[in-house]
């Protein structure tokens, strides 16, 4: 039972990343496929289009504000698509559809869990992020606290998350591309790295956002077309589909209701919540809220994003559901033609097989190109978030005490992007054969237990002080890392010990409350002069958070 839960956890974790592919890869199932010409041609068209956009964006990227946040000139609707794009990864399409394909209704329960965080972000975070922040989430965390200490800590928190996540994305990208396009792993990683550098260095946030928007539209159109074509086989009737799915699925009618997830429902539910708070602590997601002109547009953008994500999730579940019949009955998708055996290309290829089943090689090529584009877009956003932590937080604010000139700051951010790109490519290649599942737990654990508590408390809780934030932040960081090290994916799989000490893959459920607790207790015990001043500054911050007066304005183009 435990094995099943951790298996589900693994799948669930990978959904939030493009790592879905790493599951089978880790166990050595991934094999280089024959060169997929359709996919390569379509990907080439996508790259040419996005390079044209980058060229256009480069002419508009002159100030730091343009570079970090597209000058705050993205509309709510565009930003909604970009946020949705960040969340609708290749893994969502591949992982969720595969989960529904194999587990039936349990896959759907998971999907709902991945969605509910978005309404919460709308209600509690979106507008405050926009009103208080300018370029990075450290702007908000250090608003009324010690600029140097908190900003340095927040910048390193961001960089840690960005680096871990970049490795995960790079390894996932290499494996996905090798599978879909038939390219060699190192070539795939270098292609992703180089394209990402071009987008970010020349086009900054403007190009990064547009790449994300285009990809989101392609993914929505591709997914919807796939689901519609699939449903046409069943006369667009879910009842007909259900009848046939029950006949085909090995669990029969059982898979139409809640199943083995019963084993540990609290774990599953709190894990999805932990994931959500991790997302609210991911620097590249938070950065999206600074690209719109004001709080009004920030609110609109989460509304659109939530709608797109919800719709896409339902589409993906439909695809997985239809695959039970269309793939499950067709021996050509199974290794050795053995129905119910191993799927060709590994367990996560359900959506890709469906593309072939309803639209032939051309549609498969299209969907593969979209999956590649997805990884590129996410990687570009990550690199940008990491670069801004270096140049805006560390260089301009901490080292230069806010007196850096824009030209130098831009230069530093571009150098930082190149360094991050190189690190990503090198680590991506080094980690090829490693099981990187633990990095996902680490990324979300650190984001949820280090970045998120400081961010939330700085916005909502007056008694917070610098000491409290630092103490809680370090406890969150250390506990998240130790729980991951003691969990099965590192303690047993990597270090080769007998049994894991920490039973879950995801540390946030435990490390996050611990971080909150320590932050709050230390803050309350802090009676220093500095603490009094920091609390006094909350009132003005509160007015700004509520009204947006004093918030960074959009630059004019």
């Amino acid at each position: 039972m435990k094995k099943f839960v951790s298996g589900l956890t693994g799948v669930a974790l990978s959904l939030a990343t493009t790592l879905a592919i790493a599951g089978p890869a880790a166990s050595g199932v991934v094999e280089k496929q024959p060169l997929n010409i359709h996919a390569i041609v379509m990907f080439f068209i996508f790259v040419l289009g996005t390079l044209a956009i980058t060229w256009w964006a480069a002419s508009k990227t002159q100030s730091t504000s343009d570079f970090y946040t597209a000058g705050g000139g993205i509309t709510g609707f565009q930003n909604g698509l970009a946020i949705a794009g960040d969340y609708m990864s290749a893994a969502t399409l591949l992982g969720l559809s595969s989960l529904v394909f194999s587990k039936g209704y349990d896959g759907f329960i998971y999907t709902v869990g991945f969605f509910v965080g978005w309404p919460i972000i709308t209600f509690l975070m979106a507008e405050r992020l926009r009103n208080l922040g300018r370029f990075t989430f450290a702007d908000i965390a250090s608003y009324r606290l010690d600029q140097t200490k908190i900003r340095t800590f927040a910048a390193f928190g961001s960089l840690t998350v960005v680096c871990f996540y970049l490795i995960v994305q790079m390894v996932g990208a290499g494996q996905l591309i090798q599978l879909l396009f038939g390219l060699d792993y190192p070539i795939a990683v270098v292609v992703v790295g180089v394209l990402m550098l071009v987008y970010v260095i020349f086009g900054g946030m403007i190009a990064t956002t547009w790449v994300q928007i285009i990809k989101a539209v392609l993914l929505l159109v591709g997914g919807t077309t796939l689901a519609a074509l699939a449903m046409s086989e069943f006369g667009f009737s879910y009842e007909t589909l259900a009848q046939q799915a029950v006949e085909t699925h090995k669990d029969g009618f059982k898979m139409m209701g809640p199943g083995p997830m019963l084993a540990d429902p609290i774990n599953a539910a709190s894990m999805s919540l932990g994931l959500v708070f991790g997302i609210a602590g991911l620097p590249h997601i938070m950065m999206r809220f600074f690209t719109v002109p004001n709080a009004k547009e920030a609110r609109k953008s989460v509304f659109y994003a939530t709608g797109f994500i919800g719709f896409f999730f339902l589409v993906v579940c439909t695809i997985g559901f239809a695959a039970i019949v269309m793939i499950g009955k067709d021996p050509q998708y199974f290794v050795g033609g053995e129905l119910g055996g191993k799927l060709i290309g590994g367990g996560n290829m359900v959506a890709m097989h469906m593309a072939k089943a309803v639209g032939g090689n051309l549609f498969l090529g299209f969907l593969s190109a979209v999956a590649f584009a997805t990884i590129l877009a996410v990687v570009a956003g990550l690199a940008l978030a990491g670069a801004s932590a270096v140049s805006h937080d560390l260089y301009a604010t901490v080292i230069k005490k806010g007196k850096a000139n824009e030209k130098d700051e831009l230069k530093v951010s571009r150098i930082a992007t190149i360094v991050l790109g190189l690190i990503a490519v090198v680590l991506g290649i080094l980690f090829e054969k490693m099981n990187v599942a633990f990095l996902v737990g680490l990324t979300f654990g650190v984001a949820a237990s280090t970045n998120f508590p400081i961010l939330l408390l700085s916005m909502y809780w007056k008694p917070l002080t610098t000491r409290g934030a630092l103490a809680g932040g370090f406890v969150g960081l250390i506990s998240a890392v130790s729980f991951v090290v003691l969990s099965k994916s590192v303690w047993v799989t990597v270090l080769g010990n007998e049994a894991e000490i920490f039973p879950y893959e995801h540390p946030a459920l435990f490390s996050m409350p611990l971080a909150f607790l320590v932050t709050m207790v230390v803050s309350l015990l802090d009676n220093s002069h500095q603490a009094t001043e920091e609390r006094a500054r909350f009132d003005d911050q509160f007015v700004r958070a509520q009204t947006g007066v004093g918030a960074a304005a959009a630059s004019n183009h």
Partner: protein
Amino acid sequence: MSKDLYQRMRDNPRFNELVTKRSRLAWGLAILTLVIYYTYMMLVAFNPKVLHATLSEGGMLTVGVPVGAFIIFITWAMTGYYVWRANTEFDSLNEEIVKEAKK
């Protein structure tokens, strides 16, 4: 932005009105979202039969399918309601407070 301006806004009783109204709505909806979701999860854990019942006699589609879709839809609709209230009512109240403070 001057401290005086923030002070004047804070002293405006309408600022309190804005804060109370917005907080009540935002926290109310956030809690409602969690209640809806965890009610569903409790059903999954402790009374899965409810979700496993078929929608029609002899059919195979179960109650759980529309229920799950409904949760996604209703919480999204709630964000729509919040954004609408915030972008109309709260923002105009907000504008008045800022205008009065800048006088």
